[in-house]
């Protein structure tokens, strides 16, 4: 296939880029133990002091809880709407099919400032609604639909509709078929989609800053607001380090859940 030399160059290139990709993340981890609170390099000494402060930080805890709430609610909405859209588009070849696909992609294809400002303007100027946790959830759900939709659609494409037809032929109604055949067939795709959707919402900051009231601090907003405060910076760094470590969990789960790697993972955004 490819020549020996090219294969070797590709291997070296990939390794070098991956090392460069991981250096900044390693720096965050290391700096969370750095005694110097302005993170001088190389570190003068190591300490667990910041980890203790971060653990006790009420602001970080509250923000974490807000983020979890928003991500769960947005994911529930995205699961329902994404599955419905994928089922609705299945086996149909009507003219609007491309329009619907485009509409589902649009919230992630347009920059976050556009989606964020559109929702803020819609809620406040047009409808006269105050920003709240719910306005964040509505905005997040909008760009999370695509992750569920992509996963469910890929699963449908892979498994076809033979099992459902067999079920209907054997006398099961639509609802029974959905409950006993379609849903079990989709289960792992739905989990993978939900996981991606949760991660996307949990990490989002641009749309969030536009749709959150000043009382609703998600974790990214909390990090951003404390980033430039000298006495908070080491605590933020610990929270950042924790997030790096925890990011391995959803990937591990998504890997186990989705049958092939390409499916489920490329729907990341």
């Amino acid at each position, binding site marked *: 296939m490819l020549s020996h030399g090219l294969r070797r160059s590709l291997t070296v290139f990939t390794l070098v880029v991956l090392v460069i990709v991981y250096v900044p993340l390693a720096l965050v981890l290391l700096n969370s133990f750095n005694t110097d609170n302005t993170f001088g390099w190389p570190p003068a000494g190591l300490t667990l002091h910041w980890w203790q402060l971060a653990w006790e930080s009420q602001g970080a805890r509250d923000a974490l809880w807000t983020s979890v709430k928003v991500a769960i609610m947005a994911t529930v909405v995205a699961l329902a709407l994404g599955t419905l859209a994928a089922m609705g588009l299945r086996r149909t070849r009507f003219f609007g099919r491309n329009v619907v696909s485009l509409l589902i992609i649009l919230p992630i294809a347009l920059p976050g400032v556009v989606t964020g400002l559109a929702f803020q303007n819609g809620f406040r100027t047009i409808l006269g609604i105050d920003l709240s946790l719910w306005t964040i959830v509505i905005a997040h759900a909008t760009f999370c639909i695509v992750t569920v939709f992509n996963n469910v659609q890929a699963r449908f494409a892979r498994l076809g509709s033979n099992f459902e037809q067999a079920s209907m032929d054997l006398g099961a109604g639509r609802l029974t078929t959905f409950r006993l055949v379609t849903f079990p067939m989709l289960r792992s795709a739905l989990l993978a989609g939900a996981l991606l959707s949760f991660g996307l919402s949990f990490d989002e900051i641009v749309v969030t800053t536009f749709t959150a009231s000043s009382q609703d601090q998600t974790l990214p907003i909390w990090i951003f607001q404390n980033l430039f405060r000298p006495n908070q910076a080491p605590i933020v760094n610990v929270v950042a380090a924790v*997030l790096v470590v925890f990011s391995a969990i959803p990937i591990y789960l998504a890997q186990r859940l989705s049958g092939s790697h390409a499916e489920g993972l490329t729907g990341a955004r």
Partner: protein
Amino acid sequence: MGLLLTPPMLWLGVAYLGALGALLVTSLWSQNDFTGEIERIWTLDNFRSLLTVDVYRTITFRTLMVAAVVTVVDAVLAFPIALYMAKVASRRAQRLLVIAVLMPLWASYLVKAYAWRGMFSADGPIAWIAQPFGLDTPGYGLFATTVTLAYLWLPYMILPVFAGIERVPDSLFEASADLGAGSWQTLRRVVIPMAFPAIVAGSIFTFSLTMGDYIAVKIVGGTTQMLGNVVYDNQGAANNLPFAAAVATIPIVVMLGYLAAARRTGALENL
């Protein structure tokens, strides 16, 4: 089937598109400088200042340039990695590599931008490496912004390109070799044309995400301004929402044009 589509279409077609439409309408209104109230009087003033004030032209041009550079850099970095993952690595290594690429994708966006703030800081690792050679860190600015954004969006390019190259059958590589093509020629004439829609698919993300970013710009950009910053600084009660809306139409128009062009390559099936 139509019944199933009703809820998602109400949400996306009515609520989301409605909000985008309202944004366009708002961009044609004005703000009373005195009371700060939005006045629903039709005017093209916002667009007029957008087109005539030099600062906004410079910022628009700068943003498009950064988005283009970030996209090209990511494509150039992602292609060899994706090729390695799809066609060279063993099954086991492939699994590990997918995880290795996904890890930084899942690590918080802010953490990554923040990590580069540490890298570029005056007493950070880049300065530490550069100083023995009589050089210094480039510091916070346009260069740091470009590097950080290219870093942030690299996985969004690798994943679709990887999936795209994986779909190129091995037999095509063999056929190309049998017909006398060397590795480079096979890459140039078989793999790249077949992976092109996937590269375009990835570029939609790298381009769009760069164009709308203002947070990474604030973290590593120093005093650099991009379109996202102008939108952000003009929103909110005390500022000029109609003008922010007018600025936001620039990325909308650019991305709709980009998507229309991408559609012709078949890239949208690769998302």
